[in-house]
């Protein structure tokens, strides 16, 4: 699977609930329409949380979520596009 192209990156690795979602929201607020934010997280709960947040929030769209590995640790990469 090819990852969407991102314009900004947010590193929330090592952080736990609710920080991945809250920091994603704060980062998105500083972006412009059509920017794509790449969020790198190690919290497995971020998969469900960021999907739910994107679904319930106006002005953002979840493009993709990719589960991978980084240094033996699970890495969850989320791609959020700003729509408005």
């Amino acid at each position, binding site marked *: 699977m090819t990852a969407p192209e991102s314009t900004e990156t947010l590193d929330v690795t090592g952080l*736990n609930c*609710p920080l991945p*979602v*809250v920091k994603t*929201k*704060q980062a998105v607020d500083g972006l412009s329409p059509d920017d794509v934010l790449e969020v790198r997280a190690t919290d497995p709960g971020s998969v469900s949380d960021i999907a739910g*947040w994107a679904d319930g*929030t*106006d002005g953002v769209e979840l493009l993709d979520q990719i589960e991978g590995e980084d240094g033996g640790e699970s890495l969850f990469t989320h791609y959020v596009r700003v729509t408005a």
Partner: protein
Amino acid sequence: MSTDAPEADASGDGASAGADGPDVAALAEQVEALRDEVESLAAADDGDAGRSMTIIATKGTLDMAYPPFILATTAAAFDWDVTVFHTFWGLDLLHREKSRELKLSAVGNPTMPIPNAVAALPGMDAMATWMMRRKIDDNGVATVGELVDLAVDTGVTLQGCQMTMDLMGYEADDLIDGVEAGVGAATALQHMADSDVQLLV
């Protein structure tokens, strides 16, 4: 809304049975108005934006400080309008010093690997608190102080109960910046009545 539909049906039936007359234009106008209303209701119902939540925070221990702030900051991320009303021990969560040194009780805490009789000994609360803080740190969980700052930054309204302030001898200056101090139960109830979600923690 449910009462609108039968009414609209009834007038519709009446007109078609009653005839053919000049009411058709008025009916068409009515139908158009109803369609606009349904569309605006559907639009308002789309997504979670515009929702609101009021949390009543009553507990001031390290463990019970988390639920209100985790939910409040997450709801703020959904663009919800969030108010947390802090009363009794919950007010300590907004106290400049006390919010930074919240404690956990070892007694009556079934997660402690020691009997209550031992947990009641001096120093055991400090140990339980230290263990919890270490776990919080090890797991990348925010500190209560960080969550309070985040709540203020994300526009959560933090309110301090005036009666509790009097009871505990707290001045407005004892509370962190950005707190709406000196509000009462009526204010809390008003916010609860206007909210989509109300929680007592």
